[in-house]
């Protein structure tokens, strides 16, 4: 497995956010992480990117121990994250937001090629190239932060609720982009979503978290048909 987290525990002061979660992502896979509010999804991603230190457990990525590495080194190892709530650099232009995404890279020609790829994938960003990122719509900002993460040329892409607060039509576009990125750029994806249906449709495998622990896991196709998943995560829409 490319990424392997084992028995992760994370506490914030007195809140037990994650209690013994193990999950893995294989090379080329798209893995979904679903679950209700406060289940610990964001906390798991923060542990992988080094923004929050696990209290115990082990995170391995291509043989390296991530849980002792600084966030800026984890990016260099090949993991990029699209954080919850987008977090564009609001007073920087679209262009500068994309360029800072490649901050960890030193291959200038490669960066230009990636920039072309990102602008080709999200033509909207090209139209808004000089605009301050903070003045763009939520959907445009989401494209921007996905583009920003791609600029790092990651081998593993972590996405935290890319559908949050975005018009339904755009959610479809974003979902298609994630599939395309996984397929064309050979990037493995770990996708956190509250829109469980979308996440299960575009992923190979999935984990469902409930109050800090893995409640269910398996192939996404099967989970989509699972009665417990339907009841707990897919609502009455089926």
């Amino acid at each position, binding site marked *: 497995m490319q990424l392997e987290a084992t028995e992760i525990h994370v506490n914030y002061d007195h809140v037990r956010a994650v209690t013994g979660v193990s999950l893995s992502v294989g090379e080329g896979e798209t893995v979904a992480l679903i679950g209700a509010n406060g289940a610990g999804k964001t906390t798991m991603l923060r542990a992988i990117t080094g923004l929050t230190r696990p209290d115990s457990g082990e995170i391995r990525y291509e043989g390296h121990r991530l849980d002792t590495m600084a966030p800026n080194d984890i990016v260099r190892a090949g993991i990029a994250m699209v954080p919850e709530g987008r977090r564009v650099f609001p007073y920087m232009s679209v262009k500068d937001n994309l360029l*800072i995404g490649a901050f960890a890279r030193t291959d200038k020609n490669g960066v230009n090629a990636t920039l072309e790829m990102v602008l080709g994938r999200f033509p909207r960003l090209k139209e808004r190239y000089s605009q301050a990122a903070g003045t763009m719509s939520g959907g445009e900002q989401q494209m921007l932060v996905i583009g920003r993460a791609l600029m790092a040329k990651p081998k593993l892409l972590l996405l935290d609720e890319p559908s949050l607060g975005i018009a339904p039509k755009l959610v479809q576009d974003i979902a298609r982009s994630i599939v395309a990125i996984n397929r064309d750029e050979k990037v493995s994806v770990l996708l956190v979503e509250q829109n469980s249906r979308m996440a299960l449709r575009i992923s190979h495998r999935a984990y469902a978290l409930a109050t800090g622990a893995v409640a269910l896991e398996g192939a996404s196709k099967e989970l989509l048909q699972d009665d417990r998943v339907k009841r707990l995560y897919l609502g009455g829409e089926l």
Partner: protein
Amino acid sequence: MTEQVIVNGIYSGVQYALIALGLTLIFALMNVLNFAHGQMYVLGAFVTYYVYGVLGLPFWLALVATALTLGIVGVLFEKFLFRPVLRRSSREESSMLLAAGTALLLESLILIVFGEKHRGVPSVVSGVIKIGDAYLPMGRLLVIVLSAILIGGFILFMQYTKPGRALRALAQDREAAQLQGVDVGTYSMIGFAMGAMLAGMAGAMLVAISGVNSGLGTWISIKAFIMVMIGGAGVVSGAIVGGLILGMIESIGYQMLPGGETYLFIFIGLIIFLAIRPHGLMGKPWG
């Protein structure tokens, strides 16, 4: 006479902008109000006094020595004082008190090393030019030109270089910047050093015109706070605008109120202004 007021205002204003720029950079990056900014300015003046005035080396060499000294002071301040405190305490008063402490420390050190006398240096250039009805000594013109170059250079650096982008990103969203691979420790240090350098360079120019003494620091810090309040904290354009406005108001005040009430009116005006516009003219987190 009005032309003289404008020329004087620009002369003070560009130096003030330089001072405010350093203060606002440190504030934006670390959320620290650098109380020692005025003392850094005074230290810069004394280094230039020593290298140019005492050792008799060229003025440009004194400027380089000043930049290096203040850069080192900035690095030491960030690494050994602010970083440990900010890591251990998220309460804002901790870094505030530390900042006040560093101001007192630096002032005492300057007093011990350079003494309490007012010090000046020989003119760097001589001559006077006339602009309309206004007189502008060449020394002051040099200060205006050098300050403008430094301000312009700073803006270009922040806007168009990779480290500049990293500093802006860090100021706007610390965590998101880390996720792009920006090392918070290194870049906070670079930012603090640059802020200290800007203060020191302004001081170096001051000593070339009107001399320096060890007691000036606190007053300069207060002026820098005023500029940042006028322009908006943490905003590059705000620091520049705030500096130019303060320089101009001061120049007008000194002309019209020879009795020394200028700052009384500036403070009253500032309080009314802040009540109406608490974020200053350009108030936003970072520009």
